[in-house]
């Protein structure tokens, strides 16, 4: 069987199922089953893709069979294949969590098709090898996210989503402007070809300006300092399953795009571009830490932890050496998994207690032991206590920073781990220790058990990801090698 189109399957299968779902608006059960089938098939395809990339190297397909720099190329290296797989895993479990928490009303108004369309856009953005095509996939995922954030039409959702759309429309306009500038200088849109052309002209000053413009565009989407201002309020508006998807996936697309452009295009003036990225990433971490400690609202605490993680990953990228990049890849996937798990868990905490305010919680460990221990494991994983999943990523990032002589940065990273630990343990102490402040609202134990299943699964996957580091390392090394050496990527795309 000719499998050159394999890397398109994780994009096309969710798209196909999303279209079919549009015909079953009222049949909620059919929608649920079809969504799970679609995601399971995509998951199989993406695992197959990882195996193929591992054995045969980078997979590329140029749509319409035009030769490489002219047609739109889709490229799947180990980095993007692993991100695609992680995206589908998280969506799969968040969809299961939605069954018992999102409510039939939302399910009947195209909730599942919107999720699948968003996955189409996310996986497309991870896979594409064409900078304008990346803009198109960004728009696909953004338009689906506009629907998800406003779905339900609560007063607060409407207020916050209009701001969310506005910010993203402006950043998309800047994206188009930046691509236009880049095109006027290099005269190509294929990412591998852009990299070659920039190397030929040896990155003049105008390319560095474009690098900063890209940082602004993707920084707005990926929430780096000082462009994260829109994120905390917007993300707190939609219901928890949507928040879990946004928090685990959407900002990571921005982070991926920064990583890709800063390791493939702008590698000739590291002293300026990557220094700039590093300073911003450290400021992002500090701003996130302040936010994470400032709030008594569980949602806000975890939302600010997204911002901290974005800073940590980009700090790893800014080192531009193998250890730093390997750590960034490792930490990126860890953060997607653990954020998915944490958002689902605090969703259950909010469901059980009926409030998101820490001051009104207490004593849950007596009534909901499993929830408490799962949360504790996830919290330790987030802070990076060995052997859980956050540990090895941070070790590698710090190692990379020491190799690149960025000692102060490493110290900030390590200190931020303590703040992260403090911020999430505060939830544990307030919600699970002490005595019950208010009577818990009456909840159906069956719904609670249904909600716990995806949470436990996500926590277990993140634990396996941490414990199985040794086994995963070859894959991470493959991903980091492509990032560290652009010529591997270029040769794979422009081979003919």
């Amino acid at each position, binding site marked *: 069987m000719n499998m050159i189109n394999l890397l398109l399957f994780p994009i096309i299968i969710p798209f196909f199922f999303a279209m079919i779902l549009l015909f079953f608006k009222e049949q909620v059960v059919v929608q649920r089953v079809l969504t799970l089938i679609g995601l399971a098939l995509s998951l199989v395809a993406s695992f197959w893709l990882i195996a193929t990339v591992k054995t045969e190297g980078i997979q590329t397909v140029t749509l319409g069979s035009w030769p490489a720099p002219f047609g739109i190329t889709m490229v799947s290296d180990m980095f993007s294949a692993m991100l695609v797989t992680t995206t589908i895993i998280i969506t799969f479990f968040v969809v299961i969590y939605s069954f018992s928490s999102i409510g039939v009303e939302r399910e009947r108004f195209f909730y599942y098709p919107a999720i699948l369309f968003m996955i189409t856009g996310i996986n497309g953005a991870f896979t594409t090898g064409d900078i*304008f095509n990346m*803009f*198109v996939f960004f*728009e696909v995922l*953004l*338009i689906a996210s*506009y629907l998800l954030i*406003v779905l339900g*039409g609560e*007063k*607060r959702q*409407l*207020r916050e*989503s*209009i*701001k969310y*759309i*506005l910010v993203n*429309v*402006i950043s*998309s*306009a*800047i994206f*188009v*402007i930046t*691509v*236009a*500038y880049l*095109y*006027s200088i290099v005269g190509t*849109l294929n990412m591998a070809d852009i990299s070659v052309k920039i190397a030929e002209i040896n990155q003049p000053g105008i390319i560095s300006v474009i690098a900063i413009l890209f940082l602004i565009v993707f920084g707005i989407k990926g929430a780096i300092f000082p462009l994260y201002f829109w994120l905390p*309020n917007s993300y*707190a508006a939609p219901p928890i399953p949507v928040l879990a998807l946004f928090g685990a996936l959407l900002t990571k697309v921005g982070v991926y795009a920064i990583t890709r452009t800063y390791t493939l295009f702008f590698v000739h003036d590291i002293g300026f571009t990557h220094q700039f990225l590093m300073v911003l990433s450290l400021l992002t971490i500090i701003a996130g830490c302040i936010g994470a400690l400032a709030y008594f*609202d569980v949602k*806000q605490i975890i939302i600010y932890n997204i911002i901290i993680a974005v800073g940590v990953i980009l700090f790893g990228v800014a080192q531009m050496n193998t250890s730093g990049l390997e750590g960034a890849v490792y930490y990126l996937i860890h953060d997607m998994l653990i954020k998915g798990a944490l958002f689902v868990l605090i969703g259950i905490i909010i469901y059980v207690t009926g409030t998101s305010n820490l001051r009104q919680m207490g004593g849950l460990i007596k009534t909901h032991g499993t929830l408490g221990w799962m949360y504790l494991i996830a919290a330790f994983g987030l802070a990076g206590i060995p052997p859980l999943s956050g540990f090895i990523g941070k070790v590698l990032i710090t190692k990379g920073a020491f190799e690149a002589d960025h000692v102060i940065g490493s110290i900030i990273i390590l200190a931020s781990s303590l703040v992260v630990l403090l911020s999430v343990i505060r939830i544990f102490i307030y919600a699970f220790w002490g005595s019950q402040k208010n009577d818990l609202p009456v909840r159906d134990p069956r719904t609670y058990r249904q909600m716990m299943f995806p949470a436990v699964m996500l926590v277990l996957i993140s634990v396996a990801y941490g414990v199985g580091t040794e086994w995963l390392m070859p894959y991470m090394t493959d991903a980091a090698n492509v990032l560290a050496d652009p010529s591997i990527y270029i040769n794979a795309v422009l081979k003919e």
Partner: protein
Amino acid sequence: MEFILAILIGILFTAAVYLILSRSLLKVILGTGLLSHGAHLLILTMGGLGGSAPPVLIDGVTDFADPLPQALILTAIVISFGVTAVMLVMAYRMYAVHQTDNMNELRGNDEHD
């Protein structure tokens, strides 16, 4: 010709920024429309406006217009059209629920709900 277009794009961006910074939501949406118009014209200008022949393969023609910016601009126009439609619908719903289109009154966080 590029120079005149560059000035036009500058004027569009200026007007867009002015409108986006205003309080009324409708003006803000019109501002995003102008912003995307400016961005689309910029794509066309950045591709270079030269070329005496259409970009169709005919033997012997070497000086043809660049077809790629035209393809890009078409895609971008369709996308910004769709997004503007979504925005207008949501702005209307928000106006219906909140009874205001003044962005100053749409601040607020958890404490003010």
